[in-house]
Structure formats: structure tokens, C-alpha cells
């Protein structure tokens, strides 16, 4: 299987010939850091780490695409990669009566929203659904409001290790300042970074699907309405294959009354990456080959699914785009698990 992404060749060019140029090797930026390669390598090698190392060479030398540059500069200046102002970060929560720790409120659990649900119009609905569900289950939670800043997961994967370190320092200090002991995240990317990459963290962190699955198990979250849809679930790479959280999302979906759950063939550790991670939200694919997200949508249609459920803001946006580009609007819908839960409570 020939691929333009020949990691050994690229390393040779970078280290031996010092000829690496972002424009000559656009495929370096195609990688989504799903880490399937690392997980499958029979020799226990870590090609994903090597690729990120290559990106560090380029990024630290300033040789990156303008879209990546803008996302990185924005993250440093505004605490989010979307170029949006800090003062607008918690606008999504207006009128929802959410405790704001930045304004002195206290809560047992921090709901870490993530830059994408905070600012993206489509994904704000996910954050609002989360609040609805937490409030229904009488969870004692709060948000950091406008003080919340990017976890840095994508920045590290784009090769901006310095920016990542800066964010870790700032975030750990912020969490300490607010006495955060428990955290629940919307995004698997934030979950993965906080859980595995934030050394010295003094708090427990869960992805929201783990938290909600627990609530359902304990009888604190019950369903009163039916959601009569045929639903399949797309395992986000950063939740599934990287952190082995497979059962909880399924447990939630299967408890929703009326919901008919169907499983993708490529599911769990074999889940097909949607191509949203690893900085890909800011980088166009270098070739015109079929997008994996489009393959996923076609898989869902073949399965007879009306809804592709997922649990990641990037998967949500990428799969929704693919629904549009494959002309499947009206045939299949993409929803976050919490949105389905919110419909059923």
C-alpha cells in the first residue's frame, strides 16, 4: 500500500538534508493523530510521535500554513483557536442559570466546555444540551466562564510544544486557584490531554459519557420520552482507541427509550477516523482522495441508520460537513449523544 506519507523518507529529508519545507511535504499535515499506527505497530514503535516531532521542527521554525499560524496565534492571544474574543466565551450559557466559577460561585464538579462548543454555533447546542441534562439530574456543577482556555491538545499535535506547555501551566494554575477536584469534559480531546498529558494534575477527569453512564446507573438520570430513531455510534479516536472508552457511550444510547441501536462494522478500536483531529480542523487535506468522514456517512446509510451519534465536537462538525458534501441531508443526521439524551429526559 503506497502512501504519500512516507515517514522514513521525510525524516531523512528533515534530519539529514535539513530540507523540510511545509509546502513540499503537505502530507505531514494530513495526519489526524488518531494513533492507530502506534496502537497497531507490532514492534511497539510510535510513528505518531515521530510525526508530531517532524511537525515540531516545522512549527518551531515558523514554517507553517497561514491557517495553522492563525489558529496558534489566536490560541495564545485569546485562549481559543477560533479567533474569537475571550469576553464572548460564555455567551452560549446566557439565560441558562449556570454557576460561573469565574464570578465566585462554587461547585462540586467543573464542566469543562471546550473552545468549539463555546464558540461554534452548531456545537453550542451540545453545551446547552449538557446543561439541560446536568440540571435535570441535579448535578452540582459550574463552568469557568470566560476564564476557561484551550486545553492545548491540538496545539501539541500541530507541533507547537511551547504553546502546549504554556497552556498546561496556565490551566493547572487556574484549576488550582478554583480548587477544582472533579472535571467533566465535552470533548475527548480535552479529556485525553487532561487525563494523560497534564502531569501533576490535582483533579479527576472524566469524559461526559462516563459521567452520564454513571448517573444513569445510579438512577439519578432517568428517561421519560422516547426517541424513535435508528442510531449508530461513531467512536471518536481520542475517546475510543486512545482511552478505551467504548462501553459507556453505548450504554447511554441503549438506555434511551425507543432508540434502535445499530453498530458500524468498523467500530470500537477499528473506528474509522473522521479526520477532524490532529490539527485537521485548520488544514485542508493535501489530496483529493475521498474523505474518511464521507465513507463513514455512506457506511451509516448502508446500515440504515437515521442518526450518527458521536461524542466529540470535531467528529460532529466533520461528519456533518460530510453529510452535506455527500448530499445525504435529510437522509441521515449527526447528533452528539448528549443531544439525544436531552431529547429523552
Amino acid at each position, binding site marked *: 500500500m503506497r502512501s504519500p506519507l512516507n515517514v522514513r523518507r521525510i525524516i531523512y529529508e528533515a534530519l539529514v538534508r535539513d530540507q523540510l519545507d511545509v509546502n513540499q511535504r503537505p502530507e505531514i499535515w494530513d495526519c489526524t493523530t488518531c494513533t492507530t499506527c502506534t496502537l497497531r505497530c507490532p514492534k511497539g514503535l510510535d510513528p505518531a510521535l515521530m510525526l508530531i516531532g517532524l511537525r515540531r521542527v516545522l*512549527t518551531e521554525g515558523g514554517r507553517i500554513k497561514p491557517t495553522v499560524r492563525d489558529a496558534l496565534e489566536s490560541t*495564545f492571544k485569546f485562549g481559543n483557536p477560533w479567533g474569537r474574543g475571550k469576553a464572548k466565551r460564555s455567551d452560549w450559557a446566557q439565560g441558562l442559570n449556570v454557576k460561573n466559577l469565574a464570578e465566585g460561585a462554587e461547585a462540586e464538579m467543573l464542566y469543562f466546555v471546550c473552545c468549539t462548543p463555546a464558540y461554534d454555533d452548531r456545537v453550542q447546542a451540545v453545551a446547552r444540551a449538557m446543561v439541560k441534562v446536568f440540571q435535570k439530574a441535579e448535578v452540582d456543577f459550574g463552568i469557568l466562564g470566560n476564564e476557561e482556555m484551550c486545553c492545548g491538545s491540538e496545539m501539541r499535535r500541530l507541533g507547537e510544544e511551547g504553546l502546549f506547555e504554556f497552556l498546561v501551566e496556565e490551566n493547572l494554575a487556574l484549576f488550582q486557584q478554583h480548587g477544582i477536584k472533579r472535571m467533566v469534559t465535552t470533548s475527548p480531546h480535552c479529556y485525553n490531554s487532561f487525563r494523560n498529558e497534564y502531569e501533576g494534575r490535582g483533579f479527576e477527569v472524566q469524559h461526559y459519557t462516563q459521567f452520564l453512564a454513571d448517573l444513569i446507573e445510579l438512577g439519578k438520570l432517568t428517561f421519560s420520552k422516547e426517541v424513535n430513531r435508528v442510531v449508530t455510534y461513531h467512536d471518536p479516536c481520542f475517546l475510543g482507541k486512545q482511552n478505551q472508552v467504548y462501553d459507556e457511550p453505548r450504554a447511554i444510547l441503549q438506555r434511551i427509550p425507543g432508540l434502535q441501536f445499530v453498530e458500524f462494522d468498523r467500530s470500537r478500536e477499528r473506528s474509522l477516523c473522521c479526520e477532524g483531529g490532529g490539527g485537521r480542523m485548520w488544514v485542508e487535506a493535501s489530496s483529493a482522495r475521498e474523505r474518511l468522514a464521507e465513507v463513514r456517512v455512506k457506511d451509516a446509510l448502508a446500515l440504515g441508520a437515521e442518526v450518527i451519534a458521536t461524542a466529540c465536537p470535531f467528529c460532529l462538525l466533520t461528519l456533518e460537513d460530510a453529510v452535506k458534501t455527500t448530499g445525504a441531508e435529510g437522509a441521515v443526521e449527526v447528533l452528539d449523544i448528549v443531544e439525544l439524551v436531552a431529547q429523552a429526559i
Partner: protein
Amino acid sequence: MDIVVCVKHVPDTTEAEIAIRDDERGIEKRGLVFDINEADNYAVEEALLLKERFGGSITVLTVGPPEADETLRMCLAKGVDKAVRLTDGRFEGSDSYATARILAEAIRELGRRPSPIGYDLVLTGIQADDDGCGQVGVTLAEMLGIPHAALVISTETEDGKMKVHRELEGGLHEVLEIELPALLTIQTGINEPRYASIFGIRQAMKKQIEALDLGALGLAEEAVGEAGSKTSLVRLFIPEVTAQATILQGSPEEVSSELLTIFKNEGVI
């Protein structure tokens, strides 16, 4: 080619709420994010591109408070050789003229040293994002006694002369030939500024930023600040909204329907 670039550390007011201070002489800076002035960023990139082609050194100057070091470090991280910050409480209240005066004196002072820093080219952005005066660059050129061209959108260098395009209204370009040393004010879009990584900025911490004050420049107190300015700010105010759009209310479908009616009435469709 030795280049001097004058930059400014300005607040980013995108999506920020701007509050005028009680004394009406400035805005509340707290909570605002500061960064290099957009046009100046393009000027720095242009200098770096010229250095990559022709060699030489780049010196960056700014008139500002110690916080402006953030911008200077970013320039150093990108490959600028030397950074000088002109800081003095007495510079407060300087208008464009007094600011140009400070910069001119600093450039002359750098040229008087035992190891002089000379220049073939002085670059500035076309205007600052905060005051939008567009005055410092061209004023500085006159003070230095060198030819200038403002609103430069492209440059070509050959034999000590530069061919530059100035961007006029309507996208028209004025092409002119200018002898060096000269001053150019740089328009946004002339190039694609590179990225300065956090690692690069940290590395740049090793490079020293020189701070010069009034005394170091040998300027009299009356030549700077409000005393040295030729204009003075009376007050800031939020502009009165004279004409205002009729805001259409309702859902996207409702406003679309209203718009269609408006379009039909105006004979557009």
C-alpha cells in the same frame, strides 16, 4: 541591506468591548489583549524577506512601555537582529509628530555609536490599529531627510534602487523608483507573515532588548510628550449613531421573507 523597522504594540479590539476612561483621554486597557500592530507585522516580514535575499541586519524600534517587549521578542524570534525600546514617562501624551521625533532621534543615536547601526531602508506599517493616524512613517522620513513612499504593496530591489508599487484607490498601483536610503510605509497583504513559536520566543529571550530613555536620546523634555506635540486630544467619545439601519426581527425564515418583499419593492428582483 540594513533595515530599521518601527513597530507598535497595540490593543486588539476585535470583539472587545471598548470603554472610555473617566478622564475621557484614553480607553480602559484592562482585559484587552495586546499584539504587534497588524501593518507593522507585514513590515517586519518584508524586512525578513529582504534580509533572506540580500543579507544584512534588521533593527526593530518601538516607542512604548515595558510590556511592548512582548512584541519585540516576537520580532526577535522571527529573525530580527536587534530590538530597541524607547521608554520614558515623559513620552506620554506624544502625538504622531512627537513620536516620530523620538524615533528619528533614536535612529540617529544608533548611527552615532562606535559600532554604528546604519540603514538602507526604514519600514513602518501604513497606520496603527489604535489611532489610525497614518502619520508617523512619512513624518519620520522627512525628519531623517530621506525619500519615502507610503502604502507600499510590493517591492523589487536592484542596484541600490527599489521599484515599489503604491496601492491607490480602486486597486490601481502607482509604480515608482526610489533611491536608498528611503522609508516605506507597508500595506497589509504585501506578504504572508511567518509564525513565531513560543519556543522561538523563549530562545529570543537570550537576545537583549535595549531600552533607551529621554536622556539616552539627548532630547529635551519639551521636544516630547504633550509639550512636543503639535496636536492634542481634547476628549474621546462614543460616536453618535446618526443613520441607523431598520433592524428586521424574527427567525431567519421570517426576515428572509421580509427581505424578499423589500427586494421586490426596490426593483432588485
